[in-house]
């Protein structure tokens, strides 16, 4: 077998490999990836490894962190182990956050792609619809939806998706409007491809890089939403989450700072790592920044 690529020519790399190389060079983004992976691993394996029930009373209430080796991060107002709460609470926050981000992206891409692709009256109507959703204060609207349809992981997920999609829709619309003018789309039209095929098989793959970056940021936003809603007591009342821990311990913050500080740091680190990864992906996908 003969090798057609000569020794001196650069090895061909895919867009993915190239992006990964740029991403790895971004120290902050790499750190974000490491932190997020750690958090995901702790949430997935932690409950089994740690073995303390987050819902039951294990010691006296309000034990400060570092004073009792059985409850290293202290206990809350009910004597529940804060560390166990952090480990289990991550599951709901991450699960709802990423599921809600998925719902957000699906609604946003559907609306934005249709508006951008068809233009004209379709665009006008859909953009008015989007503007209407931007007028409603998102958190309040989500609170109303959850209160009316009773809180559960599912309603919280959909409520966040329903209020958070407009930005994704605007971005998708802009990308579709730009890309639909390009030659390869005209080429696809000339071979009589259907609209659906052009939208999802031709334009969407080319619009993906900015959409992936924005989807990463949407995950951060959704996690903050979930935390805010649980803090207000509108999460699933039977499922431990970081926001719920802060909300439940709020009356005692002056007696037990640790009960709210650690769950907050967990939310902060998660969203921070997600947004650093988003920045890194932005660099990786942006050809203008490649040559730096």
């Amino acid at each position, binding site marked *: 077998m003969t090798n057609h690529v000569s020794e001196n020519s650069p090895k061909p790399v895919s867009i993915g490999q190239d992006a990964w190389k740029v991403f790895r060079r971004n120290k902050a983004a790499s750190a974000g990836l490491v932190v997020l992976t750690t958090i995901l691993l702790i949430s997935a394996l932690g409950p089994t490894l740690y073995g303390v029930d987050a819902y039951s009373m294990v010691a006296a209430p309000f034990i400060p962190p570092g004073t009792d080796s059985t409850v290293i991060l202290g206990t809350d107002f009910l004597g529940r182990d804060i560390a166990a709460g952090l480990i289990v609470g991550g599951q709901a926050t991450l699960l709802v956050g990423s599921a809600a981000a998925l719902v957000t992206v699906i609604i946003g891409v559907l609306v934005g792609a249709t508006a951008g692709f068809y233009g004209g009256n379709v665009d006008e109507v859909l953009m008015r619809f989007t503007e*209407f959703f931007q007028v409603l204060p998102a958190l309040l609207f989500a609170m109303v939806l959850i209160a*009316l349809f009773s809180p559960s992981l599912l309603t919280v997920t959909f409520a966040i998706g329903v209020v958070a999609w407009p930005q994704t829709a605007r971005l998708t619309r802009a990308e579709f409007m730009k890309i639909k003018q390009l030659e390869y789309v005209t080429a696809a039209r000339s071979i009589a491809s259907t609209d659906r095929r052009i939208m999802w098989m031709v334009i969407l793959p080319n619009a993906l890089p900015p959409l992936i970056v924005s989807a990463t940021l949407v995950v951060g936003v959704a996690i903050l939403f979930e935390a805010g809603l649980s803090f207000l007591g509108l999460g699933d009342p039977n499922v431990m989450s970081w926001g719920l821990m802060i909300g439940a311990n709020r009356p005692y913050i002056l007696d037990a700072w640790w009960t709210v500080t650690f769950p907050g740091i967990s939310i902060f680190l998660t969203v921070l790592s997600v947004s650093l990864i988003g920045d890194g992906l932005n660099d990786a996908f942006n050809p203008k920044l490649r040559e730096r």
Partner: protein
Amino acid sequence: MNIAFAIARRVFYAVLLVLAVVVLNFLLIHLAPGDPAEVMAGEMGGVTEEILHDIRVSYGLDKPLLTQLWIYMKSVMQGDLGQSFYFNTPVAGLILSRLGPTILLVVTALVFSVFIGTTLGVLASRKPDGFASAVITVLALVGYSAPVFWTGIMLIITFAWLIPIFPISGMATFGSTGGLFAQTLDVFHHLVLPAISLAFIYVAQYSRITRASMLEVLGADYIRTARAKGLPETVVVYKHALRNAMLPVITLAGLQFGNLISGAVLVETVFNWPGLGTLAFDSILARDYPTVLGLLLISSIVVVIANLLTDICYRLADPRIQTSHKV
């Protein structure tokens, strides 16, 4: 198209948006599981069969859906947002009595974040690798990632408990006496921590956008002209450049108003600030739906008005828009 016509069109459009929110509320009442009359009465208000009957009659709940919508819209347009059986008072009055504190909080946070944000942004644009730029980068990361309610709680723990220089919660010292001046000062003392918590995210956003827009404007021809005719650098930067660089900031500030109100719901709950946010929290816990839906409507109206004002401000601030419309 002159400016008056453009504004009139915007006002008309704003009214349509508000009507759409009314329709949304109506849909929510009917989509929610259970009897619409019970939704309109709220769950925990000691509602009797008589009250439910009254609601059914006054909102025509036995009539066709479109007739019901018409009756509902008519009563809302007349300022009747229903009765809160939990707070035992008409919803419209209840919400209006809480509007002031929220506007005070939101506007203070907005002014604070725009002021600090643009100042940092201008400083950073003049020295892109300087201290201000580093501050902006850190603020942007922390501001975006820290949940606003947690920032508020951390501020309480730090500045009301560890270093007790600010009050823990509320809007005024209970039973405080003194003149108008002393009372105003007291309210502002209570306002500091909630306003900072709410403004925190936006300081970073406004400084980033100011920096970007200043860097762009400072390269424009008219800035070179201003410098060439010997104007002092401060006049060039603050009078010529900043006015033009402020336009994206104004746009963003207007668009952020809805987010500010969302943030206010959380911040008010943390600080027991007696505004719409704490009312939303209390009424949702009590499943007091008329108040909850009224809040959604009133806060949307606030956002619509804020967007309108932004649009007008934008037209006044941008000299190009003014002249091009006069021609």
